[in-house]
């Protein structure tokens, strides 16, 4: 059985549109933060953090061609390590985020060394199993608060700079800053020789090795970067919510992340942000009105998978092309 031929489809590589979409999204977020209330600001911060997670999945799926159903594990690693750093070791939360990034990268490196040789569906399954393993462990670990999780985690204290992180306005901006930083880093990597090679790897790994590409090494790097980014998301999430519970590491979280990127358009980075926003807002709004929102969300997912191959990104690109054409005619 040859799963080698399963190739992931990604959206067209288009750095300009990616940047434009990103600017629009950030501007929208900023408007919401300025004019929205307490809840809106929290909501935006949450979306920003989820976007970081979605971007990490997107990077992995589109660049390395690796679909991970266990990525929530890194969310959890980031979250729990931050918690331990803050509560048990008294490290300042900002440094804790950086440290959890390093831990995430390190564990990602270790794991990827063993699993990147697997292809297609086996990779999905193994990541799923690893993620569940981590979930099960966290769920029963007394040190990590077990099923109840840990609460009472503080945010970065930078009051000496006259800024109060506990103000949701500030924290929303802080999350957006992280999101933008990660967006720029990931875009940069995507455009770099390595990023292009990762894209090539997804498209045709035989050919890539024939011209001298170290397929396995690239995959390991992609996985490591991606897990580090996911850890940052986890670390920020803990600081936003002030608590951590094992639910965060369940495999369905990874599944929802994948849905976000497929809705936004795989491989476009800013599409991941768009997808995260749309899916999250949709879920939130729907569950306020009807109790069987899952049915509707499920149906929408299926429709997107079936009829919108490139997600919202594809839609935007089509729209843009049409507008450009219209312009040229005049």
């Amino acid at each position, binding site marked *: *059985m040859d*799963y080698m031929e*399963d*190739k*992931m*489809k990604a959206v067209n590589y288009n750095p300009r549109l990616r940047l434009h979409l990103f600017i629009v999204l950030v501007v929208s977020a900023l408007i919401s933060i300025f004019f929205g209330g307490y809840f809106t600001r929290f909501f935006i911060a949450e979306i920003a953090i989820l976007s970081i997670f979605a971007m990490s999945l997107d990077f992995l*799926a589109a660049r390395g061609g690796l*679909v991970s*159903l266990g990525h929530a594990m890194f969310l959890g690693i980031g979250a729990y390590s931050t918690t331990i750093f803050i509560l048990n070791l008294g490290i300042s939360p900002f440094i804790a985020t950086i440290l959890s990034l390093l831990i995430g990268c390190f564990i990602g490196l270790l794991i990827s060394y*063993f699993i990147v*040789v*697997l292809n*297609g*569906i*086996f990779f*999905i*399954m*193994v990541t*799923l*199993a*690893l993620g*569940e*393993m981590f979930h*099960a*462990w966290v*769920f*029963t670990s007394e040190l990590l608060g077990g099923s109840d999780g840990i609460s009472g985690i503080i945010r970065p204290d930078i009051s000496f700079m006259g800024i109060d992180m506990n103000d949701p306005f500030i924290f929303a901006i802080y999350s957006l800053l992280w999101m933008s930083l990660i967006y720029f880093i990931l875009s940069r990597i995507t455009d770099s020789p390595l990023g292009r090679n990762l894209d090539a790897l997804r498209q045709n790994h035989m050919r890539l090795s024939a011209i001298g590409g170290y397929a396995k090494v690239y995959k390991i790097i992609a996985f490591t970067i991606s897990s580090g980014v996911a850890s940052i998301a986890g670390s920020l999430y803990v600081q936003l919510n002030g608590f951590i519970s094992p639910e965060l590491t369940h*495999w369905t979280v990874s*599944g929802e992340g*994948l*849905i976000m990127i*497929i809705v936004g358009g*795989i491989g476009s980075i800013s599409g991941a942000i768009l997808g995260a926003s749309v899916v999250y807002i949709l879920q939130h709004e729907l569950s306020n009105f009807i109790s*069987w*929102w*899952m*049915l509707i*969300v*499920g*149906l*929408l*997912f*299926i429709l997107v*998978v*079936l009829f919108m191959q490139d997600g919202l990104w594809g839609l935007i690109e089509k729209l843009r092309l049409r507008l450009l054409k219209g312009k040229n005619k005049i």
Partner: protein
Amino acid sequence: MTLFLLSAGLTIIFGLMKIVNLAHGSLYMIGAYIGLSIWTISTSFWLALILAPLFTALIGYLLYQVLFRHIQIADPMRQVLLTFGLIYIGLDSVRLFWGTMSHSISAPNILSNSIIVLGESYPSYRLFVIFIGILIAALLYIFLEKTKIGAKVRASVDDPEMAKLLRIDTDKILIYMFALGCGLAGLAGITVAPILGVEPGMDMEVLVLTLIVVVVGGPGSLKGALIGSLLIGFVDSYGKVYIPEIAQIIIYAVMAVTLLLKPNGLYGR
């Protein structure tokens, strides 16, 4: 043994169609619920046992016609997500139709006592479940290995293009095999209902376990599903009891080791 029924169905779908069906657990749950309804209306367990799998197979048939037909050639990611959407739908439709209460089905009277096996009393219904598992395994074996249709099926698995050249109607075979796989999930659902009950959320509980069995056994291999389910089932039940410290992790560890040693599963091609 339930695990085998489930995995056999999934492995057929998995190996034959290369579809990653995360909704397999949902079909199992729906099978159990349909069985519950039939049992409540007719009060006959045997009728439920026969009809529930048929209905589930029918649902599978419809799903294939409406959805899976279109994503058969898609990349695994899309399949994963489509079936992920199906999980959502399955969960909510069960809730809308049957409510949120936990239900239970009584085993028929003949099977409600205990039997003494090797000096230990053992519920006879459990023996019945094992019997069904063996029966299905034998039937599937005969069907796939000894009959003409089975040969065609195997041909479609091994080399779809060649099979098409030999004028085997692979599309038709795929539909029926998909329905069969779903029917087996339904059968598993109704068979275990008297032991494990019928409740929302039962889909997720078996899904991961089933996927692991299929991956360990090797996708597309019936023998793999059988050995895999025995191995995982055994490790799962006894591991929990005798080494509780790592009970949660042990089956994943088994899977990881298997895949490191044999990347295509025990009996993978």
